[in-house]
């Protein structure tokens, strides 16, 4: 494992709702290393995107409170002024957005949108910037790069646009890439292409990648380590093989059993009871997943759940995993097994 690229310590991101602050990311600590893909998974509303946007500083400062540390290149990003932060993002840190249909400015050419970060971060001549941009377009798999360079976003398909979005993120060779659900808005065939492209690029680059997704297939294909988030907290953190072979936390196991498989099955697909509570309605005492597994007795939960290292590099929050069984299973008889493809 290479050097640490990004170190998040006790990050708490709170949003102001009617004058009160509610934490959407609650005491998250993570490390991302060089050449590593860390996947962050969880349902909608468990704080994945809030975490990603906190790292790169894209929250509206007027309604957001950030506490803790985001250490990157020897600085705590949370303490930086906007001007100093702007020297880092786009250069050492790139972001890939979810929806390529809206992530590009409809009034600027593809060329000028990829060139833009270079203008602020790299000292290159106009001709060099163009050369670099064409090269980037080729690297993200666009063949007629000279034509695309002067085209507008609306002239490209969704898959092409997502390639352009990736090219924008890579423009200045970042050492950290944040990909916020890069395939969610694409249709399935294009998803596969974009995943292949990202894997290929990841093999070339030495940067760390934070991959936010709720697609466990994507995780199995790309990630080295997985952090499972629920209600703003990390509930389980492990290497990807370990996570799929030996998932421990009730939430992780519920998620894994909720995947439809094409194998002949014993009945209905597993469904996790209830929904992720909204920020205002979240009970912050005790195990946050407890209300969704009501058949597990209260005494199985920890009063103040913390992360336990059950095996080297495998962390689980709360003790409720020990006697956990899915509601449809007989107590502890069967454990869902999912192998890395």
């Amino acid at each position, binding site marked *: 494992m290479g050097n640490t690229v990004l170190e998040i310590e006790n990050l708490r991101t709170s949003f102001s709702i009617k004058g009160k602050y509610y934490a959407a990311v609650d005491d998250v600590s993570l490390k991302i290393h060089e050449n590593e893909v860390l996947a962050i998974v969880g349902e909608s509303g468990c704080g994945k995107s809030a975490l990603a946007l906190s790292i*790169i500083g*894209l929250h509206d400062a007027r309604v957001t409170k950030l506490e803790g540390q985001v250490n990157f290149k020897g600085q705590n990003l949370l303490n930086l002024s*906007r*001007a100093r*932060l*702007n*020297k*880092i*993002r*786009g*250069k050492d840190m*790139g*972001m890939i*957005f*979810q*929806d390529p249909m*809206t*992530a*590009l*400015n*409809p*009034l*600027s050419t593809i060329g000028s*949108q990829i060139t*833009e*970060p270079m203008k*602020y*971060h790299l000292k290159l001549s106009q001709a060099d910037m163009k050369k670099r941009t064409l090269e980037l377009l080729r690297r993200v798999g666009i063949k007629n790069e000279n034509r695309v360079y002067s085209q*507008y976003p*609306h002239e490209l398909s969704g898959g092409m646009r997502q390639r352009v*979005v990736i090219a*924008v*993120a890579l*423009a200045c060779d970042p050492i950290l890439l944040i990909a916020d659900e890069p395939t969610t808005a694409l249709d399935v065939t294009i998803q596969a292409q974009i995943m292949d492209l990202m894997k290929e690029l990841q093999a070339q680059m030495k940067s760390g990648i934070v991959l936010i997704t709720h697609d466990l297939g994507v995780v199995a294909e790309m990630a080295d380590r997985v952090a499972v988030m629920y209600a703003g907290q990390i509930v389980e953190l492990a290497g990807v093989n370990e996570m799929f072979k030996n998932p421990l936390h009730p939430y992780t196991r519920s998620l894994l059993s909720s995947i439809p498989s094409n194998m002949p099955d014993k009945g209905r697909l597993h469904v996790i009871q209830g929904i992720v509570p909204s920020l205002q309605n979240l009970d912050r005492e005790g195990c946050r997943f407890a209300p969704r597994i009501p058949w597990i007795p209260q005494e199985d939960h920890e009063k103040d759940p913390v992360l336990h290292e059950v095996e080297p590099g495998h962390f689980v929050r709360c003790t409720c995993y020990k006697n956990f069984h899915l509601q449809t299973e007989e107590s502890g008889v069967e454990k869902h097994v999912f192998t890395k493809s």
Partner: protein
Amino acid sequence: MLTFILRRILVMIPQLLLLSVIIFLLAKAMPGDALTGAFQGNPEANAEHMEELREKLGFNDPWYEQYGRWVTNFVQGDMGMSYVHKQKVTSLLGNRLSNTVLLSLTTMITIYLIAIPLGIIAGRWNNSWADKAIVTYNYFSIATPVFIFALIMLFIFGFYFSWFPTGRSVDITIQNGTWDYFVSKANHLVLPTLSGAIIGTAGTIQYLRNDIIDTKLKDFVKTARAKGVPEGRVYTRHILRNSLLPIAAFMGYEITLLISGSVFIESIFSYPGLGQLFIQSIQTRDFTVVSALVMISGAAVIIGTMLSDIILSIVDPRIRID
């Protein structure tokens, strides 16, 4: 682009013809005719003589003959005689048209000079005290009728302080073409322009403000910030360029609205423009003038629409006309 303009002009012809029929019939349907207007209150006018005149001027012919005469003359640039002013409509319009266009242009420019900065401030710092003040001003300007506001302006700055002239478009004692003439003309424009502009900004401000608030949250703005683009440039290069589109697109309409809509301002400041002439002509049943004026503003609206389309196609790459 050229074929587009040509096509639009071709489409204009039937539109204008239809407009001309409607205008002509409506003008004919007005009670009385040019003679009742011209001889209103004239003790010398006797009914027999007037009937003779009507026959001579062709007022008793069937409407389609009158219409045919009017249209054929119109396309040849002859808009007929004003029965009240006893001169050709074209020469009557000449100066007034340029006066009105001048007033409309200065009003429009002033509107944009006020509205664009205010709209940007309100949109960028929405819910701040500045935004609240600007929105309050919007309510005020939308709620104030232009004829009241213009009268107040006239009273305060024209009459009470005597800073600006209270009427006409230029001091007629000054020789045309001199520097003084220009200054006098500008001086006469100030009050009518400000009266129209100060309360004409609401639409533009509100549109711009809302569009900026909307655009601020768009994903491509996040992309720009993630690239490390400085905040000021995020606004100029990404947000404003998108938010100014609807304003630019509306520009063509705006100018025609002003040309046909400055009736109140021109009447209150006795500014010799088309609006003032329009009111007078309706009052005196000078129907050749009325028809000519309505035709002109109708054509202006059609041309304005075309202008809007052309402007939009220049500023927005998603819209291509060919």
